[in-house]
């Protein structure tokens, strides 16, 4: 016997999250340009539509009417496949995020692991994109991306283990519940939060960590040969990544949908939006580190720090028990 009401609700959740995430990511392109302009005493796109909001639509029209060019020297099938991987991986990660009580696509009991697995999948997109382009800039970008994302993934996972220890579960809904009853995990896990913030922005290849694209060195890095909507997918994938990361930070460290007065979903949106703003501010203010600095900072500082954090958290939990 099929429960129709439940099925319809589940379908609604799936499409709401899918379309919502894509719309938010597209809107973020406008938000980022306006916010950057605000930080740099400019106006940004303000002509197309009210406050320039239709700039995204105009850009989409432009990008869809561009020639869908595959370079003759590229490995065609991999070249076409690469941008879809990042979109799919990031959109799949949205499935496990609890936006509000009961508003979640799947309630996986390994939700956090699923998120980490999907962010590892994102590496393939960048590396394959860089490799299949068969151009030296793209290859260098791809190699950098592989090294950067693999190194930062290690302690991105480790930095979240403190949260898992405190909540006693990999299930994101349970983690949020535990925070709603107790305190937000940003307080006991401040080190884990900072490490996750840094590792997460390195994982989405955001500007302080945009070495794989580094336009001043590598033209456009791994997507140098991409044009048209295939480039657009990389672009939207990056903004989806920011949205996902902000949502994950809000979920894991800032109590997800929990909060007084306002409805739960609104709380979630407010918290996520704050971190989106923070990422844009990071982009607007920080310079790109050198490649060896990036690696040294990751392996010699952040990895030991996250291990230490895990050790201390475990010891404290043991002592309290």
């Amino acid at each position, binding site marked *: 016997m099929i429960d129709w009401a439940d099925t319809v609700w589940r379908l609604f959740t799936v499409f709401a999250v899918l379309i919502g995430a894509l719309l938010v990511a597209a809107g973020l392109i406008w938000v980022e340009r306006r916010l950057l*302009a*605000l*930080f*740099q*005493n*400019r*106006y940004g796109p303000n002509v197309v539509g009210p406050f320039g909001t239709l700039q995204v639509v105009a850009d989409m029209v432009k990008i869809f009417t561009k020639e869908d060019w595959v370079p003759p020297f590229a490995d065609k099938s991999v070249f076409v496949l690469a941008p879809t991987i990042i979109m799919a991986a990031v959109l799949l990660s949205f499935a496990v995020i609890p936006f509000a009580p009961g508003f979640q696509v799947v309630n996986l009991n390994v939700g956090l692991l699923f998120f980490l697995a999907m962010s590892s999948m994102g590496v393939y997109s960048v590396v394959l994109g860089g490799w299949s382009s068969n151009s030296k800039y793209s290859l260098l970008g791809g190699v950098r991306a592989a090294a950067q994302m693999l190194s930062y993934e290690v302690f991105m996972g480790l930095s979240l283990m403190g949260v898992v220890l405190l909540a006693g579960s990999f299930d994101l809904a349970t983690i949020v519940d535990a925070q709603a009853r107790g305190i937000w995990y940003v307080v006991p896990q401040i080190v884990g939060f900072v490490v996750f913030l840094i590792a997460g922005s390195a994982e989405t290849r955001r500007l302080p960590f945009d070495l794989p694209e580094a336009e001043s060195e590598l033209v456009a890095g791994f997507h140098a040969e991409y044009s048209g909507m295939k480039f657009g997918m990389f672009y939207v994938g990056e903004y989806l990544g920011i949205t996902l990361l902000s949502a994950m930070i809000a979920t894991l460290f800032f109590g997800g949908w929990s909060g007084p007065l306002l409805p739960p979903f609104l709380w979630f949106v407010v918290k996520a939006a704050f971190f989106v703003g923070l990422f844009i*501010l*990071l982009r*607007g*203010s*920080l310079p790109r580190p050198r490649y060896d600095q990036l690696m040294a900072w990751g392996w010699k500082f952040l990895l030991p720090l996250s291990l230490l954090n895990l050790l201390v958290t475990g010891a404290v939990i043991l002592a309290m028990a």
Partner: protein
Amino acid sequence: MFSLLRTLWLVFKHAFSPRITVRYPQQVFTLPPRWRGRIILSRDPDGQERCVACYLCAVACPVNCISLQATEDETGRRIPAFFRVNFSRCIFCGYCEEACPTYAIQLTPDFDLSEYRRPNMVYEKEDLLISGPGKYHDYNYWRVAGVKVGGKDKGEAENEMPPVDVRTLLP
């Protein structure tokens, strides 16, 4: 580490400072008078053309956008028969203005030149000539030049003595 946070804060503070963008087509603004924009040919205070068709501007022009042809009018003044500036070539370097011995050719603060057809960017003498003296109000080349032109003989220019009859100096 602290400097990174300080940078974040300083950049964030810029969100509350006024924007420096001038929204050009909606917002009108004045440029400094010595701005190098559209080229004009000025007239002297008497309303006559200043240009003496010496070709110095055409020679100084690095992109060869000025072409002209010298002629003489009925009073004996040298004037250009035609004077043509191709603004689709002009780089607004101002060398022509520097080269001009009579302040005739000048650059103005008008910068928004645009046309739908490229030939419309070629300005002829009647397009270039303005009715006033431009940046130099009192200068009149023919009044200080020791050249005989209609209505002014040798020695009648400003700061000029009447010509000396060299034969009277003979011993």
